[in-house]
């Protein structure tokens, strides 16, 4: 049977993949998707811990994380649309100047 350790290891791998995506990719939408991967990795470890300890709290925190993820996606994508209108680009390197 897979143990808590296996789930945490999987969660760690997913989190590292998400981190790598944020660092390496130069497409702002892929960067946002990588953030979603990281949030999901954390969710997985919460549920696994909840299962190990027998608490419902692990699952409840997942709902809060999902809410935050939804809010983050909405605001993040709104920023992407606004930036794309001004720069015609999805490369975050083109947004380094603090003026339009």
């Amino acid at each position: 049977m897979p143990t808590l350790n296996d789930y945490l290891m999987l969660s760690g791998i997913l989190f590292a993949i998400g981190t790598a995506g944020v660092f390496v990719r130069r497409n702002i939408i892929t960067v946002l998707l990588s953030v979603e991967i990281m949030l999901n990795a954390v969710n997985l470890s919460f549920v696994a811990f909840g299962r190990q300890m027998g608490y419902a709290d692990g699952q409840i925190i997942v709902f809060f994380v999902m809410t935050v993820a939804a809010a983050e996606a909405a605001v993040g994508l709104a920023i992407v649309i606004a930036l794309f209108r001004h720069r015609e680009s999805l490369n975050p390197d083109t947004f380094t100047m603090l003026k339009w």
Partner: protein
Amino acid sequence: MTLFYLFAAIAVLASLLVVAQHNPVYSVMLLIASFGALSGLYVLLDAPFVAVIQIIVYAGAIMVLFLFVVMLLNAPREDTDYDIRVHPLFRRGPLWFGAALAVCLAAELAWALGATRMRSGFPAAQMVSVETLGHRLFTDYAFQFEVTSVLILVAMIGAVIMARHDEPGGKQ
């Protein structure tokens, strides 16, 4: 047990491909596959409610939003100062530093987890019922629940204001 490794393999592979894809539409679809695998893992962890919510909220709503924006902007290609013929994961320059950091993180997490002694199996199954979840959510976590609802409201207003297209010379 094999199911765990199957879902884990799908999740890791799909996530890797999300990061490695050129085309954001494929990235979004692969991320949905990864979420499906995670949802399967939640079922294995006796959390069917979280599994279904994962599909409804992440795959059914948040990813539709991403896909909507990708389609709306219709700019699938990555434009950078780097040579576009080289795959993004193999470009030189400061990106290597970020990649190295991510690998360091993975190694550290693996080391930390290897040091723990939680190698015994899970305790006997005790399904957390939806009723329990709802009860806890609206009593112990009522304050946090209200705070998240305010957060969602603020995010919604913020998104509307930011994405609104102001005509030049038109009213704000």
